[in-house]
């Protein structure tokens, strides 16, 4: 096998030097009846040429990857500068382990420290961790953390949070003694409808997403004030981190915890993963955070370096009393996001956000002008919005794909059966005007 340095002859020599006759003897401690008889029924080895052909032909079956698309809903088509992928492919980054030995892991550690800072800057929060698996698990961890911080056990989640995020949270908290309540959606604005009655002293946190699943920008400031008045935390979920280039930051609105998906920041769609969860909070809650944290440390000569810190929150020290079970996180994706954010920089992040919003506004105008189509929600949006079709949306979108080679958006019916004709359209800086025009035209005829 070409990845194994020691040749069969070398291995035979090594075996002999150990006093063994065959490789089988290496496994003497395994009970004979537990040993595999015969070879695995997995395929025989492929050469590089064959392997690439194989995967290319599988990839070719993913027609959706080649089509102009208006899908968002938690995963966004943004353009990542070429250097993002080249830099993360340096062996020094991608083949390193978690930085347990700081003297020879300063590259990773400094990059994480920069990542933490950038996440704070974007979200407007004080401290951020080294990453979570993704936005959905970040939200679940935020709910668990809110319980730790407040010692209260009810959590109210907006119905306009990404349905899959809600499902993940339900799984995570199922055995944590947390009760999840729901806040409805205002049918007119598309924003979370606040039910003051539900907000009593048992509520640990109010969880909203902004822009929410329907694309509507929530009034976070108002939500924060109400949550805080009841002694609850405001957890803000962000699936479209590009919006942070334009929207007031959750921190500035009063959020206590921000749980975001960082995929928009230079990470390929890759059929849903790997992405990167961003997790940030206020300074006073830092020791309640899940996940790794990197902090500044100095050596004996006073030179600045970086180390994993506050490890007493973590599983390898605290075991079942840890703030989370997370160990491996999304290091390399966090690095990609860091490189993306620094390459775009202050102006670039703003420009991407502005273009997304501008193109979405244009798309809204074009689509609203199509006979029979309307925009059911009135709240301001960033780059996603719900369209109401005169016909059943799922079928319409399939026809659009087949006849116009366009992925027009996401039918809401699988998540919201009561919305058969609604679909979610997402526009980013990568959608050209021509594509938007084609979408509007296609909707008119599909």
């Amino acid at each position, binding site marked *: 096998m070409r*990845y194994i340095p020691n040749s069969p002859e070398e291995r035979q020599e*090594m075996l002999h030097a150990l006093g063994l006759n065959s490789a089988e003897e290496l496994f003497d*401690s395994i009970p004979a009846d*537990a*040993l595999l008889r015969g070879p*695995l029924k*997995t*395929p*025989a080895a492929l050469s590089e040429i064959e392997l*690439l052909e194989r995967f290319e032909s599988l*990839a*070719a*079956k993913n*027609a*959706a990857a080649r089509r102009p698309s208006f*899908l968002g809903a*938690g*995963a966004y088509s943004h353009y990542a500068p070429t250097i993002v992928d080249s*830099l993360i492919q340096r062996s020094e980054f991608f083949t*390193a382990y*978690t*930085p347990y030995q700081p003297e020879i892991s*300063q590259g990773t550690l400094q*990059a994480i420290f920069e990542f933490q*800072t950038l996440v704070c800057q974007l979200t407007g929060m*004080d*401290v951020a961790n080294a*990453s979570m698996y993704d936005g959905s698990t970040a939200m679940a961890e935020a709910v668990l953390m809110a319980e730790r911080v407040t010692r209260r056990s009810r959590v109210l989640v907006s119905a306009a949070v990404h349905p899959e995020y809600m499902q*993940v949270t339900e*799984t*995570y908290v*199922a*055995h944590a003694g947390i009760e999840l309540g729901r806040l409805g959606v205002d049918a007119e604005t598309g924003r979370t409808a606040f039910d003051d009655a539900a907000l009593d002293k048992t509520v640990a946190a109010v969880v909203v997403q902004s822009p929410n699943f329907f694309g509507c920008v929530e*009034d976070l400031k108002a939500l924060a004030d109400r949550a805080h008045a009841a002694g609850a935390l405001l957890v803000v979920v962000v699936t479209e981190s590009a919006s942070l*280039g334009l*929207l*007031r930051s959750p921190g500035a609105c009063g959020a206590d915890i921000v749980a975001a*998906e960082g995929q928009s920041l230079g990470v390929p769609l*890759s*059929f*849903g993963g790997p992405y990167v969860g961003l997790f940030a909070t206020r300074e006073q809650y*830092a020791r309640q955070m899940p996940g790794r*944290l990197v902090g500044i440390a100095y050596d*004996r*000569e006073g030179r600045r370096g970086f*180390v994993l810190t*506050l490890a007493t929150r973590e599983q*390898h020290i605290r075991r079942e009393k840890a703030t*989370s*079970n997370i*160990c491996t996180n*999304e290091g*390399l*994706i966090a690095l990609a996001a860091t*490189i993306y954010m620094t*390459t775009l920089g202050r102006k670039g992040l703003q420009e991407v956000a502005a*273009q997304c919003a501008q193109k979405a*506004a244009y798309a809204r105008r074009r689509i609203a002008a199509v006979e029979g189509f309307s925009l059911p929600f009135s709240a301001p949006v960033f780059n996603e919005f719900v369209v109401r079709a005169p016909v059943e949306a799922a079928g319409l979108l399939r026809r659009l794909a087949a006849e116009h080679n366009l*992925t027009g958006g996401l039918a809401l019916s699988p998540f919201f059966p009561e919305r058969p004709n609604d679909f979610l359209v997402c526009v980013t800086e990568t959608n050209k*005007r021509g594509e938007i025009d084609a979408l509007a035209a296609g909707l008119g005829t599909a």
Partner: protein
Amino acid sequence: MDKKATPHITQNEALIFERSQTGRCGYRLPALDVEETPLDELLPADLRREDDLEGVPELSEPDVVRHFTRISTWNYNIDLGLYPLGSCTMKYNSRLNERVARIPGFANLHPLADVEDAQGALEVMHELQQHLAEITGLPGISLQPAAGAHGEMTGVMMIRAFLDARDGAGVEEGDKRRRVMLIPDSAHGTNPASAHLSGFNVKAIRSTSEGLTDLTHLRELCASGDVAGLMLTNPNTCGIFERNIREICRIVHEAGGLVYMDGANMNALVGVARPGDMGVDVIHLNLHKTFSTPHGGGGPGSGPCCCTSELEPFLPVPRVTREGERFRLDSERPQTVGRVKAFYGNFGMHLRALSYILTHGNDGLREATEAAVLNARFIADSLSDTFDKPFDSPPMHEVLFTDKRQTRKGVHTLDIAKRLIDFGFHPMTIYFPLIVQGAMLIEPTESVGRAELQQFVEAMKEIAREAIEDADTVLNAPHTTRIGRLDEAAAARKPVLRWRPAEKTATA
């Protein structure tokens, strides 16, 4: 440092924020190609940022490249040399797998695309599932968990759901249900943490002087009647195969519990023995260990969960299934523990793992296992005269030593680890498992040749010599890095977790 040392620019690269210069720009977008909407119409001012993203750096593209290239050189990495972190399986990360993951038909595929337009991706996942089932001997699989700990959580939640369904306990009777998870004291910290997250009470099982699970203690604990199951790592974190595995499974099963196996050490077993054949009910695999998907400085990982057909109904949704020639995403599983992650797991890692499996072929998978175990044996054999080896059994893919013989001169595991750096090696895993004092857990993997193993052995022996003759050199190591040992205690006392302009620093 002596006078020869200078403010070497690549060794003293600042933080990216400290490098920022107002007005620099590393990015260009195509001009906006639609009519511009006035900003206030787009979004009312009170919803817009007011801070102009202050503090976010401004840099040209070469600034960014230089910054990250410079700091990258401060990292050790597999492509440089042996990275023998025990329990981490730092094997060769093939560039071919990276290339596969970047094929546009995968990289540009949206997770919510119509399944009919994403058949290739589903086929990849389905094929990987089949191979992992064959490798583990456990037919039910979900690729959704994003890492080992995530797989653990998923697996123990499945155990819980299974037991509740089996035992028919209603919510009201909650407290009567099986809520004890047994975990050896040698286990990785994620095991108890995951069990806790799933609402279990953790009870530790002692290890024997041989480094194995203490059967007597296990039987004792099982007798209480509230045992939901056992989480076992095998080979365990001492690198020893639990040769009583069948007996262990029998005890737990007879006590009404299930056996969870932490598959972090599957690199000792692939193609040689299958957990399913040993009596294990559910296991997670670390694709970022055994199946070589790169660690990336701390992730992404992928922690698929494999289980018996009895447990299969409880796997997370959606499941990737096959119907004739078509692949589907199936969420109609009423007994599922639910969803543990948005979308379907770390698909990019699935691609790499499948590429690994196909590149090796079935014989290559076994060959890798044999080579990995042989390399660990070689180290065990070469170093057992020099370092204390707490357990006699020949190791599987990793070998455990301690610093017992070196502590007399005040040299501890940490010092040995740091001194290894000066020889060009990454240290082994240290102070884990917790059951021996001064643990040094060495996992060479199959990706290293004899000559380099020999160099490692010599470095270790040299350090042992130094520990006697010149302890200071070891105690003050490393000497060859741009910074020395960092004061971690001080860092944790007053943590600075982010950069701030001027002197504002975050403390928590």
